[in-house]
């Protein structure tokens, strides 16, 4: 946003009496969009802020009314029964389903972009279908399936379900990346004596990493925040969103706010860190 303001300032540098009204309009036009976007960001972040604020509430049984400031919840984030267990479960489910979905989805994406074969269209459709299926339907279908197969509900079934809806997102994300990858690079590798396997590991894969990382991030956030499908397929296994949903009926312990706020801050910190490191590295390179 500062970018915009800077630029607006720049354009008004040269003086000319005739231009004054025009300049005014332009400044307005330049400002309206960012202001609107800023309001949208506020809209997006107000509940997050609320969540963060109430993580400092000196709450009793419920965390609905502001009772006073305290750091207790942050000092003892696992204080409320089950909250940390649910959080750990969510992390576990998120990591495992992300790994599986990313691996499977990446392979599918590569195949879909790089090869032309009969049934490619159907494969594409099959990938798209889970994405276009409402979560209730997915959850219901999976639950019925697990029961028919007499699979005990728990970690395994939750992961299986999460992998299912993450795969499609991974495929689409990685597909975009593969498509933008110059096929000439793989040919160059082959030309330089790399076997197909070596060409994949030394050229294709490293170049896909940003796409794969993005896909993994997306998969993780979807899995971490999923409630509907989890609710159907988890049995007595509790994940963080499920814990929140269930406890919401009487009052969510402030520790849940602590954990949510923590995740939010963590995500911000990671991005800033990556940026700063990348910036420092590029600066170093340029310096040489």
């Amino acid at each position, binding site marked *: 946003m500062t970018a915009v303001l800077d630029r607006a300032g720049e354009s008004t540098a040269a003086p000319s009496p005739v231009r004054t009204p025009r300049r005014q309009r332009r400044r307005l036009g330049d400002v309206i969009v960012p202001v609107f976007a800023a309001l949208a960001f506020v809209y997006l972040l107000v509940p997050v802020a609320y969540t963060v604020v109430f993580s400092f509430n000196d709450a009793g049984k419920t965390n609905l009314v502001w009772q006073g400031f305290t750091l207790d919840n942050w000092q003892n984030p696992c204080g409320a029964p089950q909250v940390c267990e649910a959080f750990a479960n969510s992390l576990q489910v998120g990591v495992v389903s992300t790994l599986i979905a990313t691996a499977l989805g990446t392979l599918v994406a590569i195949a879909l972009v790089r090869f032309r074969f009969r049934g490619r269209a159907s494969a594409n459709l099959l990938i798209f279908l889970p994405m276009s299926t409402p979560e209730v339907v997915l959850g219901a*279908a999976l639950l019925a399936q697990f029961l028919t197969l007499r699979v005990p509900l728990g970690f395994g079934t939750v992961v299986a379900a999460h992998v299912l809806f993450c795969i499609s997102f991974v495929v689409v994300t990685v597909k975009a990346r593969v498509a933008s990858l110059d096929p000439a690079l793989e040919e160059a590798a082959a030309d330089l004596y790399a076997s197909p396997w070596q060409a994949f590991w030394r050229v294709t894969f490293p170049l896909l990493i940003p796409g794969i990382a993005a896909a993994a991030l997306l998969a993780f956030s979807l899995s971490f925040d999923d409630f509907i499908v989890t609710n159907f397929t988890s049995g007595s296994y509790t994940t963080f969103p499920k814990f929140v949903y269930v406890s919401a009926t009487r009052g969510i312990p402030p520790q849940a706010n602590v954990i949510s706020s923590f995740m939010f801050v963590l995500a911000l910190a990671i991005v800033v860190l990556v940026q700063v490191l990348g910036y420092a590295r590029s600066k170093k390179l340029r310096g040489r």
Partner: protein
Amino acid sequence: MSITAALGDSVAGVAAEPPRRRARRAHLVLLGPGLIYLVLFFVVPVGALLATSLYVPVPGGDVGEYQPAFHWQNYVDALAQFWPALLRSFWFAFLATVAALVIGYPMAYVIAVRARGRKLLQGLLLVLVVAPFFTSFILRTIAWKQILADDAFVVTAMHFLHLLPADARLTATPFAVVSGLTYNFLPFMVLPIFAALERLDPRLLEAGADLYASPVTTFRTVTWPLSMPGVVAGTLLVFIPAAGDYVNASLLGNNTNTTMIGQVIDARFFKVLDYPTAASLSVVLMVAILVLVGAYVRRSGTEDLL
């Protein structure tokens, strides 16, 4: 941040024409695991769901006991009873999609175009878009409920300023449900539009200006059409989950005039144990979405999008 950038990509990515290759069956090795997974955990369960939708109750059986049959009447009954909820779901999803577009497009635009070249700022804004995913969305929804509560600041202030009639309220209304949907799926709108806009060559905007187009005209004739793939992807990613959602409706609505089909399916499934009705509603919902999406994608000329 490339990660978040590519994350946006994801959904707007229009795959290039695949190069011709000698078939070496390598694709089977690559596709195999993923597709087998999808067949096992998607095709088979959905097939079973389809079968369930035709079941009939066991005569004289207890609650929730059904036996296989081909009772197509289930669909007729289910639709006859629940078509208002079905229509309302699509209506709410549509409203939420439009609202998310109106709110999300400027956000994406500012991140992609106005913050172009300022990597740190861009990364930060992007993560602010994604980060709410990490604070449980139920917590956020409940936060909304508290923020918009009758006694809370917002409503009191609006009453005081006469922006809202004295007996009007914000929670437990269709408005609350739609804004909850909008809110919760907003990131899905912003990311693909961001990806599309980021790929937009700024030189095209200059070309527009050079050819006498004012900023507004340039937006209308160049920026908007070129961001269409992102807009289409974003609208789909908001519309589909919104149409099937029940959490927002049950937390923020919970009245007969906010009942969404997801709630009905959930209730039939879990509370009434009326599996055939739940299953047939699921099938109807899925097919309806597929048909709508297919028509939409075809109309917008972005078939190769997905």
